């Protein structure tokens, strides 16, 4: 079945360093991959997405990389700040007319001062 998972449950990063959060997916038919940020007590918030026909997309301080050969997705955060501390989820948007979002387990990012 469809599944999205993450390699690391917790990532601790020094403030100012770059963060890399990884994700593995299994459904090669998904057309979009999305990263969400969830702060404590809040709902997930959209960060960035990437279409399946791309391998890289950049936003403000964030870059998403997609490697379809090994079904791997990563989120890079440049110059990590304390406000980046949160749980990050990758999600895939299933195709075939259902348009479901399937989420991975999540990675907790801790930014150390």
């Amino acid at each position, binding site marked *: 079945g469809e599944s999205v998972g993450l390699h690391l449950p917790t990532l601790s990063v020094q403030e100012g360093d770059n963060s890399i959060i990884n994700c593995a997916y299994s459904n090669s038919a998904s057309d979009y991959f999305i990263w969400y940020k969830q702060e404590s007590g*809040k*709902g*997930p918030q959209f960060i960035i997405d990437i279409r399946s026909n791309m391998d890289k997309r950049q936003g403000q301080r964030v870059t998403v990389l997609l490697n379809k050969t090994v079904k791997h997705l990563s989120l890079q955060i440049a110059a990590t700040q304390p406000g980046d501390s949160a749980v990050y989820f990758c999600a895939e948007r299933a195709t075939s007319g*259902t*348009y*479901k*979002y399937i989420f991975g387990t999540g990675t907790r990012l801790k930014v150390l001062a």
Partner: protein
Amino acid sequence: NAGVTQTPKFRILKIGQSMTLQCAQDMNHNYMYWYRQDPGMGLKLIYYSVGAGITDKGEVPNGYNVSRSTTEDFPLRLELAAPSQTSVYFCASSDLMYNTEAFFGQGTRLTVV
């Protein structure tokens, strides 16, 4: 423009009781979703809807029911609450025709005792 509004924010239910979690969006989105998030875990899709009058099961639909009589509202019904349904419930909506971003509500924290 309030986005996605969920009520109530917190609820304690006794085993066997029933309740309805309310979700409303004012963005005229066709797609709406219900997810549950267990402690330290990712989001699991319960039910989703691609438009008024159309609903479908997600990954974990057992014990829940939904309806979608209007574009704005997507209530989630628990008929016979069980301790396994203790979780945080998130409602989301999106307009997948134009973008992949799903907007989430603040969540409903449900405890079944």
